[in-house]
């Protein structure tokens, strides 16, 4: 059976690529510290020696649109082209092509349906920065095949937070029941408190530092019960109008497991939103 070599949860900040590659007067003052934290974070994936990446993210109205909106979708294709014109325009993101791992995608679709997750699928999916940002930060050589899994944290009505946790638990079990000798890293990205297009956007910090502090504690300590007790679809409006992206962190807590402390925890307080990085090694830290 396949082995889960690492579980990784991260914010996906689309400005990282530009900040980390800019030089001279264009390089922001926080870039060096950000790059150093990302390089330490990247090492946690490299050490796990993965063969395949399951990538959990969320389409930002790129390919998925309101005339046909899935709640959870698995990409099953031999390749995934990546990044969109408006992401090149606003963030300077490069175009990419990633290989797909169709056998694992097919397994997750079949097994997921049989576990009562009515997963949608796509055989031609252009992925966006929710998946390419962690490729850029964690595996910039972009050499491993992926299975993209999109969640709807964006276009209400949304699934309940507990459903994200349940899907995370199921993804862990489904990967571990894949008949393969491969090492799989499960990587998911979301947000802490975040406001987009509202009065609290682009402040000195994220819009709700107190929520961010609690969120990091829930994730780092694997406190799924505590998190579910406080977080609801309604409550997530308060920390910022795009904070429902936190539910992808809750999904990753489900992957990691109740009470599982993260083996690597790091944060970076940036303008606009706080960065947060977590890695778990389910079978112990690699040597």
């Amino acid at each position, binding site marked *: 059976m396949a082995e889960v070599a690492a579980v990784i949860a991260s914010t996906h900040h689309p400005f990282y690529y530009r900040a980390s590659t800019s030089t001279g007067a264009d390089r922001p003052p926080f870039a060096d510290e950000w790059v150093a934290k990302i390089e330490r974070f990247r090492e946690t994936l490299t050490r796990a020696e993965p063969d395949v990446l399951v990538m959990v993210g969320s389409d930002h109205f790129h390919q998925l649109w309101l005339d046909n909106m899935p709640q959870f979708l698995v990409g099953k294709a031999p390749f995934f082209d990546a990044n969109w*014109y408006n992401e090149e325009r606003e963030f300077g993101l490069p175009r990419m092509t990633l290989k797909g791992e169709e056998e694992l995608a097919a397994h997750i679709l079949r097994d997921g349906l049989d576990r009562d997750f009515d997963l949608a699928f796509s055989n031609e999916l252009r992925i966006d920065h929710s998946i390419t940002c962690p490729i850029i930060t964690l595996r910039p050589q972009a050499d491993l095949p992926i299975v993209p899994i999109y969640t709807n944290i964006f276009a209400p009505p949304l699934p309940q937070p507990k459903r994200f946790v349940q899907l995370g638990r199921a993804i862990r079990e489904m990967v571990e029941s894949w008949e393969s000798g491969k090492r799989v890293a499960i990587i998911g990205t979301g947000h802490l408190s975040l406001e987009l297009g509202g009065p609290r*956007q682009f402040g000195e910090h994220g819009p709700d530092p107190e929520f961010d502090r609690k969120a990091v504690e829930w994730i780092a300590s694997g406190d799924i019960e505590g998190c579910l007790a406080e977080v609801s679809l309604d409550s997530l*409006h*308060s920390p910022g109008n795009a904070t429902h992206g936190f539910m992808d962190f809750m999904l990753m807590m489900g992957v990691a497991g109740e009470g599982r402390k993260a083996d690597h925890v790091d944060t970076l307080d940036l303008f606009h939103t706080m960065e947060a990085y977590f890695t778990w090694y389910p079978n112990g830290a690699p040597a």
Partner: protein
Amino acid sequence: MSKYLLDKFLYTVDRDPELVERYREDPAGTVEWWEAEMANRILNVIDAEKTTWLSFTEDERKALREHDHVTLFQMGAHPFLTLTLFIAMFERDHGPLEYQKAYGKAMEHISMPYPDIST
């Protein structure tokens, strides 16, 4: 009121470089053309199978014609779509993050709960 149609306008313009420029330069003309020609096209469906019932209210047309992102927010247009498109159109006229901060400041009188964006 159709939040869906407002979102469809913002979505289809934002993803097309030519339409971004056209909406920046000629908002009234772009909104009139888009409602006549594009509003009822189902994406990925041929013209012979157009929708028959979608149109803007006059208030919606006015907000789009006037590039009024504050009113669009109050109408429940999806804030991510509005922000992304407006950054594409107007960030170039300002210093780093200046436009994004002014965009938020123009909405500082809006309090929680924000308008519902469900479609």
